[in-house]
């Protein structure tokens, strides 16, 4: 990672205004958004949006042509182009033909995308952004840091400073007063402008309408006062039917700012009369700029379902730490990473794609049903295909693809690590894991991996058999979690088998874009895990479970190793996470816990993959309570702990503050014990507490449950 990029991250992290404002906003957003969606079936709503938008994306050309015909029939002039340069030339031509000297703009990301303002200014045309946030950043000479709240990174002091210069008068930081200054300054610009430029939130092919959504009322003035109105519309804003406006209006304000509806929505269909009675000169530009290519790409087609609400930014644990100026260029955050890779170029996204920790918060709230982390993984894959793997990573992965060598090295690490070990933790890891983190210790490699312990466990030999997939962390660092798992299943009469040939699940390689390596891991594991005839394949690591149940098939397909697909699907069908399986066994009366003892308060941390990919969150909570614990929920219980596999080593400066926040939330519950279902989270959080010094025990749910089994 380039030094400037790391420097920009550090600057952002040390900007108390920025992290304070974003942190406060994201906390309030979660609560307000939930309230705004009360009584609404979000899954149904986003299903309808995704279907309508993907329908339009499937035949963009046709839909755009229908829009053009219908808008032109109403008297609008419609210009379609793939090329951003042509957009600028067209607007300049319209400006010249109409003798335009002054332009007022209503917020439009598409014009940011093509840097329209510079083009107009170069021709001697004055341009005023009229959205308050956009005007602030225009005066400050900056770019927007958020799609919906462009100036969220600035304080009222900075705004007062900027406005003071503009009006040549010392202004204080009273926000209503600053807003009044903006109103007074911009009003004459509205009245004097000869051209208004807007974007569009929706373009309806069936009726030739554009829909504008604002709170300030500036879009109403931009489209009313000047004689000429130019609307610049990315073709992804197209929908086929007028009725689709309803679900988008239901979701967009709720997701963007937790409003039921914005103050103003304008549906404009053809030119309207000006106040002097003449008809407005209405130009609608349908801009492509890579969108058609995106629509043809099976992995990225879904990006056209985006309604630009910015909710992926609002819930992103990374965005709230570093803000938009690190995380993207014109479009920021998760979706911004994807749009940068396409509208700009793939290599422009090289650094920012690395910011995604793959926690999946954004997929849960996206009203367009985009899987942003999946698309970011695909960007990683394509970057690796284009540029190859960095040498160090290549060396690591060549080891990971050779099970014997890899496991040999892990065993060696348990010996080599000795001088560096203090209790259960290594403070300095040897070998390839040596670039380490602040604020977190790493686990010691166990003296005896689970694979060596397993043969010594005497087990019931019955008809019911489960294959245990341990994953590297449980096998080599936390074998006690594996022992607990065996104890739980044995108690229910299930024999647990452990195929020795199992190896790394491939997640580290996959999340780094090294698909070939991950595919080899997948194939090796499929062969090993299906060799035994068992009812289930069970794992106590959600990341591994996701690999087995979701990723193997996708990865193998991506690299063309389709001969493995049938087996991958069989494996996926058998795979279950431990909490779900144990809950089932308890419900069936095959397992029960000791009764009558009050074990005191416990809090629970949701692991990203378990909660959001596998949709498991109630089972472990119910089990822990059945086992005698009193559950005290923590604030942001399902927010990522900052582990993210190798993320915590690549971007320790980001991982550390995320972890710190998590530790605080845990401590704030007053519980002296925190349970979780992922050994990666155990590593991160127990490592954090080791250095933090607080007396909080960190345990995998499996161990807590195994301790409480009825004899």
């Amino acid at each position, binding site marked *: 990672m380039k030094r400037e990029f790391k420097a920009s991250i550090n600057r952002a992290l040390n900007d108390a205004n920025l992290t304070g404002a974003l942190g406060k906003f994201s906390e*309030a957003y979660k609560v307000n958004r939930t309230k705004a969606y009360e009584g609404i079936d979000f899954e149904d709503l986003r299903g309808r949006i995704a279907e309508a938008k993907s329908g339009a994306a499937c035949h963009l050309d046709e839909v755009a042509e229908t829009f053009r015909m219908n808008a032109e029939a109403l008297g609008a002039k419609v210009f379609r182009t793939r090329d951003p340069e042509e957009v600028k030339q067209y607007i300049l031509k319209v400006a010249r033909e109409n003798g335009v000297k002054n332009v007022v703009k209503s917020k439009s990301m598409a014009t940011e995308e093509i840097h329209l303002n510079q083009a107009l200014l170069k021709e001697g045309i004055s341009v005023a952004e009229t959205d308050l946030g956009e005007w602030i950043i225009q005066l400050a000479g900056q770019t927007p840091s958020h799609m919906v709240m462009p100036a969220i990174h*600035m304080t009222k002091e900075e705004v007062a400073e900027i406005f003071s210069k503009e009006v040549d008068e010392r202004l204080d930081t009273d926000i209503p007063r*600053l807003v009044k200054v903006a109103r007074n300054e911009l009003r004459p610009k509205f009245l004097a402008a000869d051209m208004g430029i807007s974007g569009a939130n929706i373009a309806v092919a069936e009726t030739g309408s554009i829909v504008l959504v604002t*709170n300030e009322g500036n879009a109403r003035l931009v489209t009313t006062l000047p004689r000429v109105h130019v609307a610049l519309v990315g073709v992804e804003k197209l929908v086929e039917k007028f009725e689709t406006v309803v679900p988008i209006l239901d979701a967009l304000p709720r997701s963007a*700012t937790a409003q039921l509806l914005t103050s103003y929505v304008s*549906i404009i*269909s053809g030119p309207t009369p000006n*106040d002097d009675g003449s008809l407005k000169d209405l130009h609608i530009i349908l801009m492509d700029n890579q969108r058609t290519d995106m629509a043809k790409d099976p992995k990225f087609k879904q990006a056209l379902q985006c309604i630009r609400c910015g909710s992926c930014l609002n819930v992103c644990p990374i965005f709230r730490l570093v803000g938009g100026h690190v995380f993207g260029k014109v479009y920021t955050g998760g979706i911004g990473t994807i749009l940068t890779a396409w509208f700009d170029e793939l290599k422009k996204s090289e650094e920012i794609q690395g910011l995604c920790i793959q926690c999946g918060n954004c997929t849960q709230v996206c009203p367009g049903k985009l899987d942003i982390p999946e698309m970011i993984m695909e960007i990683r894959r394509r970057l690796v295909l284009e540029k190859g793997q960095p040498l160090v990573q290549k060396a690591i992965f060549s080891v990971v693809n050779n099970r014997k060598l890899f496991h040999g090295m892990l065993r060696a690490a348990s010996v080599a690590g000795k001088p560096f070990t203090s209790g259960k933790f290594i403070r300095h890891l040897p070998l390839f894991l040596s670039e380490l983190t602040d604020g977190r210790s790493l686990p010691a490699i166990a003296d005896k991996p689970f694979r060596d312990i397993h043969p010594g466990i005497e087990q019931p030999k019955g008809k019911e058999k489960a294959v245990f997939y341990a994953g590297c962390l449980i096998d080599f660092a936390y074998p006690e979690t594996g022992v607990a798992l065996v104890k739980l299943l044995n108690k229910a009469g299930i024999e647990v088998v452990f195929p020795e040939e199992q190896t790394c699940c491939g997640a580290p390689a996959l999340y780094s874009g090294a698909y070939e390596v991950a595919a080899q891991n997948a194939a090796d594991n499929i062969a090993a895990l299906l060799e035994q005839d068992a009812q289930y394949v069970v794992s106590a690591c959600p990341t591994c479970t996701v690999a087995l149940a979701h990723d193997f098939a996708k990865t193998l397909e991506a690299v063309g190793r389709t001969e493995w697909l049938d087996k991958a699907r069989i494996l996926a069908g058998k795979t279950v996470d431990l909490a779900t399986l144990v809950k089932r066994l308890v419900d069936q009366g095959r397992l029960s816990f000791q009764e009558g003892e009050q074990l005191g308060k416990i809090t629970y941390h949701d692991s990203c993959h378990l909660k959001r990919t596998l949709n498991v969150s109630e089972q472990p909570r119910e089990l822990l309570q059945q086992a005698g614990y009193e559950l005290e929920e923590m604030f942001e219980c399902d927010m990522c702990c900052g582990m993210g596999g190798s993320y915590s080593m690549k971007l320790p400066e980001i991982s550390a503050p995320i972890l710190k926040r998590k530790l605080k939330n845990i401590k704030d519950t007053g519980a002296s014990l925190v349970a979780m279902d992922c050994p990666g989270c155990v590593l991160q959080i127990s490592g954090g507490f080791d250095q933090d010094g607080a007396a909080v025990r960190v345990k995998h749910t499996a161990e807590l449950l195994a301790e409480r089994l009825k004899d």
Partner: protein
Amino acid sequence: MYEQFKARAVGVGAEVHRVTTCSDAVEFVLSFLKQEGIADHPGIYAVWAQGPFLDAVGREVLRGVPGLSFEVTRERAAQAKVGISDMSFAVADTGSLVQDQAAADQRLASALTGIHIALVPTSNILADKTSLFSRINPANSRFIAFITGPSRTADIERVLTIGVHGPERLIILFVDELGGEKR
């Protein structure tokens, strides 16, 4: 539905009133204009855009009110403290008003002024957008405007501030007598 609408609209900062007859409505408006000190002087004008309400009551009863004009030019609207216009529909679940505002004076009166008084037939309160969309059609309204509360921004430090480019007060007056579907 009136109660639901009122709760939602008040929730986003609108002021909601209801009268029985058109003459009650005239009285309400006149006393409001008086209270706001509307006079024939730039900055404190009032403008009233042509619409179903004026059709129903006629302008005669309103003639001679100081500062009030029915000619809604951009200059007059920009200098007006109060703008009065009709709204066709009210949508209960979001507290929104909806109207065909293809005529420029409708937008000038409701977008440039400091206070917007919206007159709405009580019988045209609809449950939600879905029922609204069966009543509006872009084929016969070139500028369909939704108005939900006064103009607002939260662009500086996420602090909600009212009245940035549009009206800082939205006063909604339901008139029972107006009745029927109006365009």
